[in-house]
């Protein structure tokens, strides 16, 4: 493969705090040279030149919370459609939840997912393994052997690890292998019958509510267990002011604790469910406006380490039903970047900080090397246009599922190219599989 030179780019590398005009040379799938001092004219080799035209060039996004539906429910998402969806969103690394059918709770299944993913080969896919057998929350899985086969963390997916004894032992045991335990932080007894955040909106709609404190209750309990065990703990998709404050304090205390959130929790509030919009039925449910603002503040001050898409493909049958019967969740890979960029456009975050939450932030939590533009690293890259006005159109998603609460919404930011190990895996200009509506008024 000829070396490729990406020139005339705005280089964004949160790893080295680089934000400058420059160029990046890829040789043999790895970054050979990068920076403002790469003199394009001085390169003597026969290189393929990509003129980025002033667009942003950043490390490929690292999405630490994605659900696939393969094995088991391939009509909603396969590992192939998932990867196509991811790279169209600028994502080059995903970590997948174990809640498939069968559940990924055994070494052979971890290896099966890894092998299937490699056959598609568009990105780095790292499976999580189930924290407990069959996600029942009772017996621990073979943590050591699963970690050795490639599991990057342990989680019961969309279910909270409810039993404090089980959680205590998981934290103690997994810490031996340096792997995080990832919690869906919600007290299940308080959430059992609910489908929206308790409060005026749920009351007006006549929907059973889940009190917002169900989240912080579980996190406070887990933090006590972290103090007891010293285990690595990660709270997924935090969504309430109280939970973020609890994590802020735990970090100040020096506990080995991290957390992520997902775009709906900083871009939407509970009013998005009015009209019984099942695409906005999520778990945890969308929160009050004050909580949404706290999520933005938590991202800005670094309390929240990562933004994950929480990609959750569901079909029409799961969503075209009365609200309380709808399966919670939304797809998110292809809206991750444009929705997150709103934080920059609104002035809540610097672009480099936002990219950090989407790249090295999650990579560090999972102990992965990616997420930087360092020379010698794999050339996993995204080139994007941060200001480009777009309208989210779920019908054009590459994901097999279209359940997005952002469908039809205007946004700013678009992926132009995605590169995985030096190879272009998404190219907007070559992407003629779908109508090019936005080009008409370009």
């Amino acid at each position, binding site marked *: 493969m000829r070396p490729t030179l990406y020139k005339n780019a705005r280089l964004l590398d949160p790893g080295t705090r680089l934000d400058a005009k420059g160029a990046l040379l890829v040789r043999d799938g790895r970054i050979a040279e990068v920076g403002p001092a790469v003199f394009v004219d001085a390169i003597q080799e026969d290189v393929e030149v990509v003129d980025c035209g002033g667009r942003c060039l950043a490390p490929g996004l690292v999405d630490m919370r994605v659900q696939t539906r393969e094995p088991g429910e391939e009509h909603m998402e396969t590992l192939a459609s998932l990867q196509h969806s991811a790279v169209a969103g600028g994502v080059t690394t995903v970590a997948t939840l174990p809640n498939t059918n069968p559940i990924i709770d055994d070494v052979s299944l971890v290896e099966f997912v890894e092998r299937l993913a490699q056959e598609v080969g568009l990105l780095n896919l790292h499976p999580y393994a189930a924290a407990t057998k069959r996600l029942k929350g009772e017996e621990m899985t073979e943590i050591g052997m699963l970690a050795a086969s490639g599991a990057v963390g342990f989680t019961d997916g969309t279910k909270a690890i409810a039993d404090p004894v089980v959680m205590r032992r998981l934290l103690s045991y997994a810490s031996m292998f340096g792997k995080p335990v990832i919690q869906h932080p919600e007290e299940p007894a308080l959430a059992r019958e609910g489908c929206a955040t*308790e*409060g*005026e*909106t*749920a*009351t*007006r*709609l*006549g*929907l*059973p*509510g889940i*009190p917002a404190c169900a989240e912080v209750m579980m996190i406070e309990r887990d933090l006590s267990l972290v103090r007891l065990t010293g285990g690595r703990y990660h709270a997924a998709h935090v969504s309430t002011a109280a939970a973020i404050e609890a994590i802020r304090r735990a970090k100040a205390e020096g506990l080995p604790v991290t957390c992520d959130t997902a775009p709906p929790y900083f871009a939407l509030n509970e009013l998005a469910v009015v*009209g*019984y919009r099942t695409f906005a039925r999520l778990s945890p449910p969308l929160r009050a406006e004050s909580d949404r603002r706290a999520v933005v503040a938590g991202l800005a001050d670094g309390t929240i380490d990562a933004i994950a898409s929480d990609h959750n493909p569901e079909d029409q*049958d799961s969503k*075209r*039903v*009365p*609200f*309380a*019967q709808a399966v919670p969740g939304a797809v998110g890979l292809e809206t991750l970047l444009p929705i997150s960029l709103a934080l920059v456009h609104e002035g809540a975050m610097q672009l480099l900080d936002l990219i950090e939450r989407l790249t090295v932030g999650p990579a560090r939590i999972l102990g992965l090397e990616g997420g930087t533009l360092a020379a010698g690293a794999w050339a996993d890259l995204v080139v994007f246009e941060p200001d480009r006005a777009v309208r989210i159109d779920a019908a054009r998603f590459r994901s097999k599922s279209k359940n997005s609460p952002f469908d039809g919404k205007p946004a700013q930011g678009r992926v132009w190219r995605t590169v995985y190990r030096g190879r272009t895996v998404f190219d907007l200009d070559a992407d003629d599989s779908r109508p090019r509506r936005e080009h008409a008024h370009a």
Partner: protein
Amino acid sequence: MTSAIAPGPATASSDGSRYPYRHLLGIEGLTRPDINFLLDRADGFVEQNRQVDKKASTLRGRTLINLFFENSTRTRTSFELAGKRLGGDVINMSVSTSSIKKGETLIDTAMTLNAMHPDALVVRHAESGAVQLLAEKVNCSVINAGDGSHEHPTQALLDALTIRRRKGHLEGLEVAICGDVSHSRVARSNIHLLSIMGARVRVVAPPTLLPSGIERMGVAVHHDMASGLAGCDIVMMLRLQTERMKGSYVPSIREYFRYYGLDEEKLQVAKPDALIMHPGPMNRGVEIDSLVADDISRSLIREQVEMGVAVRMAVLEALVTNQTEPWAKNQ
């Protein structure tokens, strides 16, 4: 029968000359003229229903389907009578929850019925929002006969008609809604309607039976009957469902009746001419004492049932007449 609704200008408006929508999915969003229009029409039907010959021909050739996903006798019968007295053909369909579990979805059912060209669907469903979902998928008018804990608009309309006929007006009245507000669609529809009409609403219940944020709907919240009923004109009791009585929401029937059951003693603090209502079916000795429920000078419970038929006739007439009108909007 007078011709009820004159076709108006192309823009639908709430000027009181008609009901401007194709559906009745809830009270929330209606205006005072919309409600007055329906109540005025219903007043006329009360008289018609007291005649020996009760049959009109407004709905001749029209088909009405009562689609009940949840058991109901009185509401279904009331709609059936209303449809028949207007000369329409009425079919009752009870869809048991078990057959839904066999695979047919709510939308499948809606599409199947839609293909039979009904003119109106009267729908009751155990889930909030289910009736709205169904209304989005069919061509005919849809009337919400109760969806989950969301709304039961014809109940609120019949309550309003009952009160208006006794008190002459709704504005300025003090109304206490007592009992399981949390799970009650009747309470929500009544809170909306009474507030729109200028009455003042209080809710009276233990905190376990009040939904969070209810005060944001413009009601005063009371936890004891003495303060909640003080000086009120109307006492509306809600049904406490059996499954909520034992331990999870209130400790026992005995304790619930002690603190929240309506009896002569608790009623002392209300106005001397206070009237008592209940959407039925009543749990005697749980939320209401028989002496109070059967007191013909104060209890409007039987009158509510009579008004129910009249109100549903008014709603059916308005919606089915609107179907041919270009100005009728989806609610």
